[in-house]
Every structure is written in structure tokens, then in C-alpha cells.
């Protein structure tokens, strides 16, 4: 065992209102400058939808992340270093600007400076790349709120892999939002892809960074990252990516996206993990085992043996303390409600998600049963408006079981807490049915619902 600390995030998608405040505050702070106009370290996708860049999840196309070889080892899906060296001057597996979007502005100054004429002045769109008038056909968030669903939704890579057919019909409509930043993976394929050694993972907190002095602009990291969260600055010719706001983290402030999240759905904290187990966990054979394997890499920060080893590995006392107070450990390992995004990429991502529950009572109540009743509620989990298979496609490499477990926890909590809310007897049987005690449910409820500032970060 060798203990390392990782700064990690959990986002509760069940609370996400899709407002994009995180995107804007992040953009303002970090990428509001030339060369990275099209870059959103943090973006929010409406799902179902194509994402940003378009269809980034289709690794048959983009070849990001790792694959397991027949001998049980990992190799970069895009090929190893040898191939990279061979193709270093041509990198075909890179999204082009149209896959993101061609950034634009407007000739705003016409509003003030238009000479006297016959028409009301207007600001036309102008490409930020060419400076020429442009037609806007795609944006960083084109399919927001299912906009253009009939034209695009069928190309959602998750939907394409589902056995169940999802129709674009009014009555069947569902959507939810997926905010994304860099995953700061335990097993980052971008770092492994970099021929210049410019990418690294900070040893003290696991933040994955691009050394701006060392980067030579090969862009192998862009291809290597299956989440497409490394970007190319076309002005400096260097790669840039989410820094997990380390200048803030270092002075005890949460990331900009976390603190400014008005949905209050982001949790930030340290996780202790056994670095010796990462490779093994990332290369388990069955993709459905990746989730549990990654959970096994995490260490219980209250375990005296872990604490002793952490100290021995030079982890400062206050970091151990931080790991113990971390909401992340509770959400991932204790309550087991948070799940990783695309574990099948085998990068061991460290931004996890609580899947969206709603709406569930709809289905139950529609059948005439009491939608708040725990028993009927659980029976209906698999009849969610959001197909569970879709969620499993995102979070569990298609395994429905962990998604169901997470959703049942949320539904059970709501059922249990309704009695508390109405001053009725607390029903321990509800808590038991989700494998918890009433006291644990109430603890989890406080973390998810009341979620004070100090408890979130």
C-alpha cells in the first residue's frame, strides 16, 4: 500500500438545474482570452444530446482512453508511444473546430456607429477565427434543452448503444443536465499520451496539469483524453485544460465552478487511495467490475492502518483530517450514491456523479398507487422517465445494478424523510430497505439537502 491524496469532485445531477453558471464563471476566470475562445474547461450538456465536442463519447471514432489488451495490460486506445512518435506530425484523431464550434462575435460597434441610413442598425455575426461574416450553425451548447432534438438526438452515442428505443415524442420527453470538467483521473490517458512530458499529475493532490513551458503542442493529449477535456490553444500553440483551480485550492478555496454552483450540487474533497492498486483496478477484465475496482482503490481515511501509512508516505496531518471530513468519501464509498463517468475508458476518473432520480412518482402515481410509498417507489425505479439504461451507459459501462442502487437510496431517503417532515413516526423499515439505518439516512439527507458551504467543500 502506498497512500496518495486526490482532490475529487462529486456532482449531484439530481440537483442540477442546467443553468450553466459554472461554465460562465469558469470561462470568465480562465479562458476568456484569445486562442481559447472556443474552450470551456467546464461545460454543461443536455442529455440526451451530442455533448461538447460533438459525440466525444464515441471512442470508436476518437480513440480516447485506454483499452485492455488480451494479456490484461492497458494500452492507449489511440496506440502506444511508438505509434504516436510515428504519427507525431499528423494527428487524425482530433476533433476539428467544427466539432467544438466555430467561435464568433458580432460587429457590435455598428449599433453606435452606423451612419444615417434606411434600416435599423444591427450587429451581424462575425467569425472569431476568420474575422468574416458568418452563419451560426453550432455552438458550445447547441442542443440545450433538447433544442434541435429531431436533427441531433439520434446521434447521441449513448442512445445508439441502448437496446431500448427512445422516441422523440412529446409524451416521452426526458432530459437532464451533465456538467463536465476534467476528470483528473487516477490513470490519465492524456498524461500517458504526451510525447513531451509536459503533462503531469500533481503528487500532492492529483490535479492533472499541462506545463505551459514544456508543452510543444503535439496535441496527443487532446486525442488521448476520452472526455475531450484537454484543449488546444491555437494562439499559443499549447494544450490547456481545467486546473481544478489549483491557485484557489492551494489557499483553501473551492474551485470556481463549485463555489458558484447555484444548484449547490458540487462537492469537493480529498480522497486517499492506494496508488499501488490503480493499475490493477484499471485493467480488470469485465467493464462492469471497474466501478467496484475503483472503489477498492480508495482508502478509508478513518482506518488506523491507512492513517499510519499516509503519515509514513508524507501526507500532512491536515490533509488526513481533510480526507476524513471529505464529503466525497461518504458519497462514493459510504452511501455509494455517486458513480464515475464512463469507467469503461479505464482512466479511473475522479469526478463522480449522483444520477438524476426524477421523475419517479409520476410512473407510480399513474398506476394509481401512492407515489410516496417506499415499496411502490422501489418497484418503479426501473420505469423512470429517464431510462435507467441511459444512465448506466454513462456511469456504469451499462451495468444497471449500481444505478438502481443509487436511485433507490435517493427515493428511499425521500420516503423516509416525508414522515419526518410531516411529524409522523420514523419508519426504520424504509431505511432498512435501502440498507441503511434511519440515522444514516438522516446524515445522508443533511449532506445532500442542507449541504452547508463547509459540508460541501
Amino acid at each position: 500500500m502506498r497512500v496518495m491524496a486526490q482532490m475529487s469532485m462529486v456532482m449531484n445531477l439530481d440537483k442540477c438545474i442546467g443553468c450553466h453558471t459554472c461554465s460562465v464563471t469558469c470561462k470568465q476566470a480562465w479562458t476568456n482570452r484569445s486562442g481559447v475562445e472556443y474552450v470551456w474547461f467546464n461545460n454543461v450538456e443536455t442529455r440526451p444530446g451530442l455533448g461538447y465536442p460533438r459525440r466525444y463519447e464515441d471512442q470508436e471514432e476518437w480513440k480516447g482512453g485506454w483499452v485492455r489488451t488480451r494479456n490484461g495490460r492497458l494500452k492507449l486506445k489511440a496506440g502506444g508511444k511508438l505509434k504516436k512518435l510515428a504519427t507525431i506530425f499528423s494527428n487524425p484523431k482530433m476533433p476539428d473546430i467544427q466539432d467544438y464550434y466555430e467561435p464568433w462575435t458580432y460587429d457590435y460597434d455598428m449599433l453606435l456607429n452606423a451612419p444615417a441610413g434606411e434600416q435599423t442598425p444591427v450587429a451581424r455575426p462575425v467569425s472569431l477565427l476568420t474575422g468574416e461574416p458568418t452563419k451560426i450553425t453550432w455552438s458550445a451548447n447547441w442542443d440545450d434543452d433538447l433544442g434541435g432534438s429531431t436533427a441531433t438526438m439520434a446521434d447521441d452515442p449513448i442512445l445508439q448503444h441502448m437496446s431500448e428505443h427512445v422516441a422523440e415524442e412529446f409524451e416521452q420527453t426526458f432530459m437532464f443536465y451533465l456538467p463536465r470538467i476534467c476528470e483528473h483521473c487516477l490513470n490519465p490517458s492524456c498524461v500517458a499520451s504526451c510525447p513531451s512530458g509536459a503533462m503531469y499529475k500533481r503528487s500532492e493532490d492529483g490535479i492533472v496539469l499541462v506545463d505551459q513551458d514544456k508543452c510543444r503542442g503535439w496535441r496527443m493529449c487532446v486525442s488521448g483524453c476520452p472526455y475531450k477535456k484537454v484543449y488546444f490553444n491555437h494562439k499559443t500553440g499549447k494544450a490547456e485544460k481545467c486546473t481544478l483551480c489549483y491557485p484557489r485550492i492551494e489557499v483553501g478555496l473551492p474551485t470556481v465552478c463549485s463555489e458558484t454552483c447555484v444548484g449547490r450540487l458540487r462537492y469537493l474533497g480529498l480522497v486517499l487511495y492506494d496508488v499501488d492498486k490503480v493499475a490493477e483496478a484499471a485493467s480488470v477484465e469485465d467493464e462492469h467490475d471497474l466501478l467496484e475496482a475503483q472503489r477498492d482503490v480508495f482508502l478509508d481515511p478513518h482506518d488506523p492502518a491507512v492513517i499510519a501509512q499516509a503519515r509514513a508516505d508524507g501526507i500532512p496531518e491536515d490533509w488526513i483530517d481533510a480526507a476524513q471530513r471529505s464529503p466525497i468519501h461518504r458519497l462514493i464509498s459510504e452511501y455509494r450514491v455517486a458513480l464515475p463517468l464512463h469507467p469503461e475508458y479505464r482512466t479511473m476518473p475522479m469526478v463522480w456523479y449522483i444520477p438524476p432520480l426524477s421523475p419517479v412518482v409520476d410512473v407510480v402515481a399513474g398506476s394509481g398507487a401512492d407515489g410516496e410509498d417506499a415499496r411502490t417507489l422501489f418497484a418503479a425505479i426501473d420505469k423512470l422517465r429517464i431510462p435507467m439504461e441511459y444512465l448506466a451507459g454513462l456511469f456504469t459501462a451499462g451495468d444497471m445494478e449500481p444505478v438502481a442502487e443509487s436511485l433507490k437510496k435517493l427515493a428511499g431517503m425521500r420516503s423516509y424523510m416525508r414522515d419526518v417532515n410531516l411529524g409522523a413516526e420514523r419508519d426504520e423499515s424504509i431505511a432498512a430497505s435501502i440498507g441503511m439505518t434511519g440515522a444514516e439516512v438522516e446524515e445522508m439527507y443533511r449532506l445532500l439537502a442542507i449541504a452547508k458551504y463547509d459540508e460541501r467543500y
Partner: protein
Amino acid sequence: MTTTEPQGKTRHATDGALSNGLIELGRFFRKGEVAPDLRSVFLEGGRKGDVFYRDRWSHDKVVRSTHGVNCTGSCSWKVYVKDGIITWETQQTDYPSVGPDSPEYEPRGCPRGAAFSWYTYSPTRVRYPYVRGVLLESYRRAKAEQGGDPVKAWAALTDDAETSRAYKRARGKGGLVRANWDEVLEIVAAAHVHTIKRYGPDRVAGFSPIPAMSMVSHGVGARFINLIGGTMQSFYDWYADLPVASPQVFGDQTDVPESADWWNSSYLMMWGSNVPVTRTPDAHFMTEARYRGTKVVVVSPDFADNTKFADEWVAPHPGTDGALATAMGHVILREFLAGSPAEREPYFAGYLTKYTDAPFLVTLEPHGDGLVPGKFLTAEDLGVDAANAAFKPVLLDEQGRPQVPNGTLGHRFGEADEGDWNLDLGDIRPPLSIADLDEGLQLAVDLPRFDVDPGDPEDDPERAHAGGAGSVRRGVPARRIGDRLVTTVFDLMLAQYGVGRDGMPGEWPTGYDDASTPGTPAWQEELTGVPAAQAERIGREFAVNARDSGGRSMILMGAGTNHWFHSDTIYRTFLALTMMTGCQGVNGGGWAHYVGQEKVRPVTGYTQYGTASDWVRPGRAMIGTAFWYLASDQWRYDGLPADLLSAPTGSGRFAGQTTADLLVESAKRGWMPSYPSFDRNPLDLVDEAEAAGVDPKQYVVDELDAGRLRFACEDPDDPANFPRVLNIWRANILGSSGKGNEYFLKHLLGTDASLRASESTIDRRPESMTWHDEAPEGKLDLLVTSDFRMTSTTLFSDVVLPAATWYEKYDLSSTDMHPFVHSFSPAIDPPWQTRTDFDIFAGLAARFSQMAVEHLGVRKDLVAAPLQHDTPDAMAAPHGIVGDDLPRVPGVTMPKLVVVERDYPQVARRLLSLGPLAAKLGLPTKGVVYRVEDELERLASLNGVVPEGRQGAGSIRLDTAERACEMILALSGTTNGQLAVQGFRTLEKRTGKPMAFLAEDHEGEHITFADVRARPMSVITSPEWSGSEHGGRRYTAFAQNVELLKPWHTLTGRMHFFLDHDWMAELGEQMPVFRPPLDLARLYDYPVPGERADAGGEQGVAVRYLTPHSKWSIHSEYQDNLFMLALSRGGPTIWMSPGDADRIGVVDNDWIEAVNRNGVVVARAVVSHRMPEGTVYMYHAKDRTIDVPRAETSGLRGGIHNSLTRILLKPSHLIGGYAQLSWAFNYLGPTGNQRDEVTVIRRRSQEVVY
């Protein structure tokens, strides 16, 4: 790996020797560590390559400010400044705690606010003063010709038909040129002075909405306008955000729970309010409440953003919500209240008895061959000899004897009833139903319905357009009292909702599944498309939850249901649900109206400041909708026959009149304000009266009687009655709120417009108004706008003044979404030549006062003021009877007439100091007068006084924005504990009930401007509002009424189901009733939604046209912001269903044109299956500034969202002078509703021309 144990060979996790070698090599090149399994490179912190981002994060200071935008967010922000440049903003997180068991308010903000700093240095920033070149040249020429006198120059310029035509025609067509401040202020001041002198001060109009979003910035301009006698336009009603049902039912403008109170709800319905989009910073209280087991129901015709959180999604056809709510009410009344007293749910029945008009008696009057509900029976009818007996409605006691309970309007004023204005029923146990008593009659009454098929106009030309009005005859238990037949409001409600009782005569449904008669779940299904079982279940659940939780069922309602022509009826059906189930005034329960419901928490101080009532009272506050309706000549095209809105149960009193005629009637009766008031300069009127030796009031009455003087609204197209100067700040009426945008452009501004409608034919013209064959174009002489960015309003303005942004000034912010007051502060000084609103108006006032010395001097002005709510004026019309041919009695049958002095040369001094009337007359708010002598002493030491030797020596200084902020805080109960306690003590005398304890623990607390600059401050409980924060509880409306038995400001003092004004009876809206969207096909010969129809020469499809609030802007603000555009579609769009798109061959992102009689819009289509068929959405306040090409239909620049809408007046909004149906500013007035529109959409050429 540990250092103490020997290591085995680590298995390489990566493939191939070469790549292993590469990473291993890195060990030598890099001062880092490679993972032993060779996957990854680890480096310690403090590396050089990190420096870039660390530098970027650094800043010199962080300043607290906020956004003065009309969103009710009132979020406190950290503004980062580096090297004197604003870099970005993030939310403050230091709000006072809500308590240990609730989520907090932090962080408050949204993506729009987060993008604000972009404006500071953006290319759309207005950096210098601008004037349209053609005007500037003409002015300079005229000035030279007039010997350098600016006022004469303005007169000459505007009198010259050719010159004035030329600059008016040029409006909105570019050609703005830079000018300097001296010159632009001179032009603007001269226009104001000349207009006052020639036409009268009430021909100067000010428009700036929503004081709460920046009180001083609003107040300083309003103060200027009020000092000169100009008119301030209302906005809450004009925006159609005012829920008219609120004054009707509660006698209150709007009072709602703070958002943290949603958390206390255990059944939350979001009905027409898309919370994640329109209440972004507050939405989390809703998502989090679900974790407490709160059930969330969303009622929305589309899969709106909030539907994501819905346990149950109810999707009615747009505008049919009233039918759905009626059916839910039917279920609740049937299952919880209809039975015998013993069978009724005791909580609900007790609540109805105590807090609503349910037990009060209503007469039944003969009508045709039947009976209809008449008037509240009052003490006067019983022959009781008491003060204000006609305003004391009565109920029965347990023995069936009529009793006059405390707390009615009749108890509110006058010494005789001091101490009796309370809801204490004493020993009276009033029966809810006459049937609860031993004896009684059963009588059938005729009740209106509006859901019937209007039939073929060929068959019945009489009622061809009547929009499906009919009646249903149903029985009520009744009694005879004296010579009158009476029943209770409760009995009428059961009949109205179709809840039958044994043996009751009339037409009743056989069960929930009977769709044949109004009220049932099955009936609503036919109208709304919502399954009957779902309506039934939700209605029941709402009530069960209210029963089990003590009233914690909440309806969060908003624009989706409030922007309709008949929204007052929709809302009354919602409010009825909350009243039947005992939810109003309960934390976590009741109505929560969220659209435009801004709340100036320190309202008394603000009102004092903005109305300038420390110097002169009253001001001229106008109902915006009526002002724009007449000013933009929409009345010439409207011609809506008022009787087509009537019910057959009415008396036919609207016959032969248009709704415009009713507006004139309302003005003449003094119900609603009307400015310009008369067809003569009100300054001259006083001079004439004095010259004639007659009291000016009598003079006006005599002149009106003689027919020599007329109300200006009778002839709005007479040049004497034009509004001449329009001064706009903090607003974008031409790109946002102006319903009927193209009418504005054509008639008010006199420039090109895409208006396509024809004027009314002779048979549909208003009888009471003068018709000029030639419609005026270009009524306005000067449009001046202060803004920091370019909007349609600045594009069309004659003068554009460069304003400071929200990060460049001091001001105050509050909202009803949270209970705090906090500040704006300058992160930088106003850059370039920009100025704060405060400095702009101070500069304008100075210039104005200089010119006034010669041109105006001291004058007397005659103000015609309407009958005012919360004063004895509300007792002008007993029983709400509208008498005809009454003698003109100012303040009773016509407006009050008040002569005031205007000391024009002193306007600048008065603007910047506090006048004597504050101390002399006190500050009235909602019927409570605050005495402020002590507070003024304290304020004098805080602000200082004007020094000796200067004009106005000794008066308190208001010469900076900070000092104005200080004054507002010092003179309001919510921010000054002494005033809160004083106000409650005043009320205690009236109510005879203890109230002051609500504020006593804060009596010594004075919140200062320094306090709110440091952090948001919680407000103090005050009688200025109806809720309570006492003891740290969450604010909910009407807690004071429910808990302390303080009456509502209504006729009965209770919440009203029943309204007995003559006009309400005529409209068939005495009780909550379903009225469908206006049938435009019948009223105006529109195509029916779903039909193929002509769209400017080509075939398109007719669709309902709705304009919900935008995800990417706050009204028009931010819709031009590059970040918001990058995150959306980058320009104007219209959302439509795949079915409608298919019908016209449109695919996603195609250019389309939307065309109707009002104008043309060009936009791109967003095709999505989340949209219902037959309805399209264009986000509200899409301005024409960004990526709007020319329309094929008109050849002109495509319009704004409001190019397809127009103003329609509803008569019920025009009632005044009677109990809660009395006017107050932004309280009651016709709304600028815009949801009933239909448009035709077609695909257009994809090659667009700009």
C-alpha cells in the same frame, strides 16, 4: 510503496518497451516522479509551468456589488479588479444563515449575472453622449437663430413641421453622433422646460421600472420627474406581471414567501413558473425540499426545464389552467367541505370561516326568469345606525341572526371603530352554509360559464363574437332577511364549482366523470387535455397534504399563467385552492407568485425619496398600459367591443361600448389615473381660474360641465394632448416591454414600422373618443434614454446618455426572494464619459433649473388624482354600484383635484435635499402614517445638512447616492426598528390586537449603508409588509393576518372569493370562473391555430404565439452578451414542435418569418419534441440588435418579440374607488397581457439580407 518495506518488482501497467522507456526517460528530464507502474508522471507543487494560471487568478481587490436587472434575484456578487480593470465576478456567499436545518441562500447568482462584466468594456458600451445628427444640426441652427436661447430653440425646432418630421423619420436609422455633456443636457433640459411651458408638465413622461433593483438610480429620476410635475409610468401592471387577482382577493399588490420558504412546503406545485430558468438562484430550495419528501408537481404545456424535477408532469393546453384548477377545487370542495358541518374537514372549515368571505351573506337578485348573485349584504341594508355602515358586510350567527363582524372596511377608518378593525369573531360562530341552519329555502341561481361553443355567427349574429358565454342554473340554500333573499359566499362557491347537495335544484354533474356541466375533472379534460384522473388525484393530494401538514401546500405560479388576458380569473381559481385548504399565511403554504414581483423592502423611505413627497404631494403616477395604449394609438386599431366580454348574467351595461370607452369612463370617474389629464395645460388652468376669481377645483368642474374642458384621454390624437417628452432610464421599452412595438414606432415615434393592421371600422370605434381621420405619427418631440449598452430604445432615441454600470455606482438592492438588503458599490469609477443615473439627473436638474428662472418661474399646477387604495377614497361607491349621470364631485364621482406649487427654479436644490413635508405630514404606507421627526434628526447627523448661506440651508443633504441610500434605510420600518415598532403601535390602536412584539427586539436597530456594504443585512419585521421574520422564521405573506387577526385590506377584511362590483357582475366574474384564451379568430378574424394561413403572401401555419422568459437573458439584458450567445443559438429563435415544423417544411435552424396583424419577426427555428404541437415559443425580449435580418414580408429589419403583440384592455382591471378595487401605483390597473396572440409562421429564403 513504502520506504520501510522491500519492494517486489512492480508490474508495468502500460504496454510495450518503447513507451515504458519514454516515460521512464522522463525521470531524468523532469524533476518529478513517475508512477512505479509507469502510467503517469507525478510532480510536486510550485512548478514554474503553473505560474500562468496563478498569475491569472491574482487580483488587487474584490468589491461587493450586484446587478440592477429586473429579475428579482438581488444577488450579492464579488467583483474582481486587477490593475484598475474589472476582470470577472463570482457570487458572494456571506448571507446571514437561514438556520441549522435549512439550506442557505449562498451562493446566489446565475450565468447571466456571471457574464455581466463583459459589458464594461464591450463594443456595445455607450461611452459618450450621442444625439442623432439630423437633430443636433437642426438644434444648433435653431439656437443660433433664437439668440442662443435653448428653450426658444427647442420651440422653434419642434414647431417647424418639416424639421421635426425629418428628425422623427430618422429615428432608429443610425446616424447617431457624439456630443458633449453640456450640449446634450442643454437640449434635454430645454425640451422639458418648453413642454411644461407650452403643453403642461403632465406631457412629460418618465419611464423606469423596478425600484427594488436599484432604488436610488430609479428614485433620483422619479424624484426629478415628480418635482417638475411629470408623469411616472407604472410597470408592474404594464408588464402583465401584476396578478390582478391579488388586489381582488387580498387587497394587496403582491406579497409572497421568500424562496427559502419553499423548503417548508410539503407539496409544491410549479404552475406556469419555470423556476430553474426564471428563479435560478432560488431553484435549489425546490430541488432540496424534495429530499424532505416534498412532492413536486409541474404544470406546463411543454417539457420545461423545471419538469425535470417533477414527480408528476401535467401538460394542459396553453391558457386553460383555470379549468384544471376549477376541477381540483371541485374535488376539494366535494370531498372535504360539501357535507354537513360535522363531515367537513375541521381545519379547512375553520380557516374559511375565520379568514375568508365564505360565511358572508350575498343577496340574490332577479334576472330574467331567474336569480343571480347580487351584492354583499351590509349593515346599512340591516338598517344598523353605524359609521360607514354600507362598508360593513354581514354574516349570520349560529342562530341565523345577522351579525356585523369586526374587521371590515367600514371598521378601518374613523374614530367610532378604533380597536375593532380585526378578525376576531368573538362569540359569533357563523355557519358556512345556510343549509347548516335549521330552516331555509332552496333557490336556483344563474351562474356564468365561458366554455360553451360560441356557435356559428351566421345563426346568431347578436352574439357572434361572444366567445362562448352562457350560464348554468344551480341551486343554493337561501334565507330571507327583510325583503332580501340571501345566501352565503360558500354556498355560491359550491354552486359555481358544480358541487351538488341533496335535493338542490338545477343542473349538477352526476360524478367526476360527468363532462356535461362545468366543474368536474372530466369537464376539464375536454378543455385542457389533462386526464381527469390526474386532475382529480392532484386536487385530492393537495388537500390531503394541507390537512396533514397544517396548510403546507404551495403553488408557485408565474408568467406562464399570469400573462393572459384573463389571468385574473386563472389566478383566482389557483388562490381558491390555497384558501379552501387553509394554506395562505402558513409557512410552506399558499400562493407564491413569481413574475416581476419586485419588493422594495425599505418601501417607506424609498417611496418618500422617489415621489419627492417631502416637497410636493401628490405626484402624477400613471397606469402604464393605458398611457402606451393611447400614446401609441393602439386604440385606433383595437375596437374590442366590451360587451363581447360580458356574461349573459350581466345587465348589458357594456352594450355599444369598446374597451377603450371603458378606459375613458374609468378615468373620468377617478377610478384610474389619467395623464395627460385635460386638454389644457394644468398650469394654465390654475391661472385661468385665478383670473376668473374661481377656486381652481370648481373652475375645472364648471368647465367640464360646460363642455369647454375635456379629458385628454377623450382625444389622444389632438396635438395638445400628445406626450411630448419621454425620459427613459434603466429600461428598454422598445426592445422589451412595449407590447405593440410597431404601433410605438409608427405613431409615437413617427418612423418606419411593419405594422400591418387596419384601423377599426366605424362601427367598432370608441363612441366617447374623438376620431381624427389622419392618425398622428411622431407624437413625441424628444425621446431621451440613459443606458450603458445599445438597445432598441437607444437606437430609436434622439438623445442617448452614457450611464454607469452596476459595478460603477452606489445603490441599494432588495427582493422578495430573500429577506436581505444589500448594496451596489463601485469597483471602478464610471469610465470614459459615463455617469451614474444619480449624476445624470442631478446634472439635468441643474440645467433645467437655470432655464426655469426665465421660462417657468413659480407656477401653480392642478393635479387630478385618482381615488386611492388604503384611504377613505375606497368608500366612494357603496356596494360597488356604478351610478350614471352623477353630479361631478371631486374625490367621489371624479378624480380629486389638488392645486400644488411648482417652484421650477428650485428643482435642482430640492432634488438634492429633503423637504419639509416629511416631518410635517409623516410618511404614509398602506394606510399607516409614520412620524419621522426623531429619525430625521439622526439622519441629519449622518448625512449633514445644507450649510448656511446656500439655498435651502438646514435641510438634510441628499446630494450623493450614498446619502440617498442612507435616507431610504433610515426612513423605513424594515431597516429601522424604531419605525417598525411605531408602525405596529399605530396598527395596534386600530386593530386592538398586540402586534408590536414582532419588531420590539429590533427597536434599537438602525441598518445603515455601511452595514449593507459590509454584507447583506436581514430586514426587520414591519407593518409595511404582511409577513413575519420574527424569531428568525422564513417570510411568508399574510402571517400577520392569520396569526394576529389583522384584516386584509378588503371589503370584508377577509380574503375574497366573491367580488360584488357592478362591472364584475357584468363580466360574470364575481367568483372564480374558467375563461379560455381570447378567441382571436372570432374577435379579429385571425386564422385558427393549426390552420394553414397566409403569412405575408406565402402559406404558413397558424400557431399560438407565447413569449416565455428566456434562459439566456433577463428580459433584453444579456441577450446581446457574447457569453450567453455562445451558450445558446447566437440570435433570435422560435421554438416549435416537429409537427408544426414539418407542416411548413422547416428543419432545425432554418430561417423563418412569423407574421400577424401587428408586425413581423424573423428568427431561426429551434425544432424540438419537447414542444407541444400548435404552439410556438419565442423567448421574451428578443431585441432586434443581434443577428436580425430584414424581413421578406416588410423589407424592414425584423421585429422584436413584441412586434407580434399589442395591448388589449380588460374592463375588470379598470375598476376603482371601491374597497380593494381601488387604484394604487403598480397595485391595480390594466395589464399589458400578451399570451393570447396567434401568429402565422412560414419558412423563408435561407439567404438573409441585413
